[in-house]
């Protein structure tokens, strides 16, 4: 299904509970998703933030942040020696597993929600910035680049809102941000005369998505029975954009 050899740089799922949660009482959030205790559990009183972090399954870092009115689940890779952009793995190996864990949590939690979001951040290596721009142009019909034109600093963001197929009268946002990034690797020597010697330069096409249920006025609680299927739909939209590009 997914083409273009996307790697997952990080992925986030966000839920906005209907009732404001007390961060001091949310001691088991991480455990609810992972089945074990977190490595780090912090309450930042000044920010009203409960933050739980731990190594998850294959060594990725799973973090949950409860900062009313939202709960964010985020999966990020551990940094490894090497200059390249850190990766959680291929889209196919990471996204379905993470999504299924979040879906299971959504299905089992007694919480009700106003909004949901699913936000994968993907990348694929390219040989150069120009090749990256061409790659993006192939996937983003709304973007027209003159061939052979010298361009730089390309950043293209667009939302293609759409009606939900799972729930009537619910609209989804499908925000996409396309860009090419470079990672410049340095070798450092710090002493009497410090130097940062460039040793590598890698380029990446990036696709950041934020697929979310649109806000309503007044805020409307999502039917609990529909929440798992709504989340499935968010993931499905992300799957299609990753596979087919902007107009999916």
């Amino acid at each position, binding site marked *: 299904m997914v083409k273009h050899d996307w790697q997952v740089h990080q992925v986030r799922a966000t839920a906005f509970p209907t009732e404001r949660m007390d961060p001091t009482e949310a001691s088991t959030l991480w455990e609810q998703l992972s089945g074990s205790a977190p*490595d780090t559990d*912090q309450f930042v009183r*000044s920010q009203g933030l409960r933050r739980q972090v731990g190594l998850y399954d294959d060594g990725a870092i799973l973090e949950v942040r409860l900062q009313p009115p939202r709960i964010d689940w985020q999966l990020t890779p551990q*940094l490894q020696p090497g*200059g*390249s952009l850190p990766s959680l793995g291929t889209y196919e190996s990471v996204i379905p597993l993470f999504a299924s864990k979040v879906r299971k949590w959504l299905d089992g939690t007694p919480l009700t929600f106003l909004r949901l979001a699913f936000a994968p951040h993907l990348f694929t290596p390219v040989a150069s910035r120009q090749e990256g721009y061409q790659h993006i142009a192939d996937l983003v019909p709304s973007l027209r680049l003159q061939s052979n034109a010298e361009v730089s600093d390309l950043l293209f963001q667009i939302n293609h809102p759409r009606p939900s197929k799972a729930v009537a009268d619910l609209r989804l946002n499908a925000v996409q941000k396309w860009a090419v*990034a470079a990672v*410049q*690797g*340095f070798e450092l020597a710090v002493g009497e005369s410090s130097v940062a010697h460039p040793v590598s330069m890698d380029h990446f096409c990036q696709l950041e998505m934020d697929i979310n249920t649109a806000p309503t006025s007044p805020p409307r609680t999502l039917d609990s029975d529909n929440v798992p299927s709504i989340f499935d739909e968010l993931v499905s939209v992300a799957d299609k954009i990753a596979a087919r590009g902007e107009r999916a």
Partner: protein
Amino acid sequence: MRRSAATAERHYPPAWTAADWNPASLEDVLAPAHGAITLAGTTEPPYGFLVGPVDHYPHANEGLIALIDAPSAEAFGPLDREPRMFASQNFIRCPLAKRNSATAPFRFGLHEGTLGFTASTSAPTDPSYVEQWKLAFRLAELQADAEDEGIAISEGSQRDLLRFLGTHLDWRRPSLFLLDSGNFRALWRDGREQIALEFLGNQIIQYVMFRECIGAPDDLASAHGQDSLQGIERLLSYFGVERLTKR
């Protein structure tokens, strides 16, 4: 809330600050909390501690510090509630291993025992002191995890971690992880900018750092390598990621 009779009072040495703290092992970190520490005052405000959110405790912001060594049912009340320690601004969940029965001894890190704690309105409020304890509790948790998972902790890695973080108690507390190799890794992160330090032992740190490029925030600069415990701070500063460690 249940009361527990006061049996003795022990104040922390007021001069005991981060500058005096150079632990060689986790045992050194925890040593002041073991054995002799018992209840000072009562479990009622303003001299005690509570079971429950610190927000519900009106005296928690008045400089009261409760350092919980290991809990007992009598002092902590309901057995199904997790005891917490708290300080002037933050509370910390006291790391406890799950017990097999209500009468089994509590375990704190590798230690077992009954309750001992001190609470004093004259306890030091030096933030570094509190950070020292937070670090100690965090490492105790990791020790317990390592034991459960059969991971042999690298003593050299632990010693270096304690030395490094013990001399940087004014830094933002990192996320700490115990790797399968038995080494400790500290992680500071702000968005895509990150510092990961793995303590290899023998006072060597393996570092990986990412920071955004000025003027091109989609681009990143990265550096990785090894340096000494003493050299790493200068390196973080030179690479421009030192701010990730600041509160």
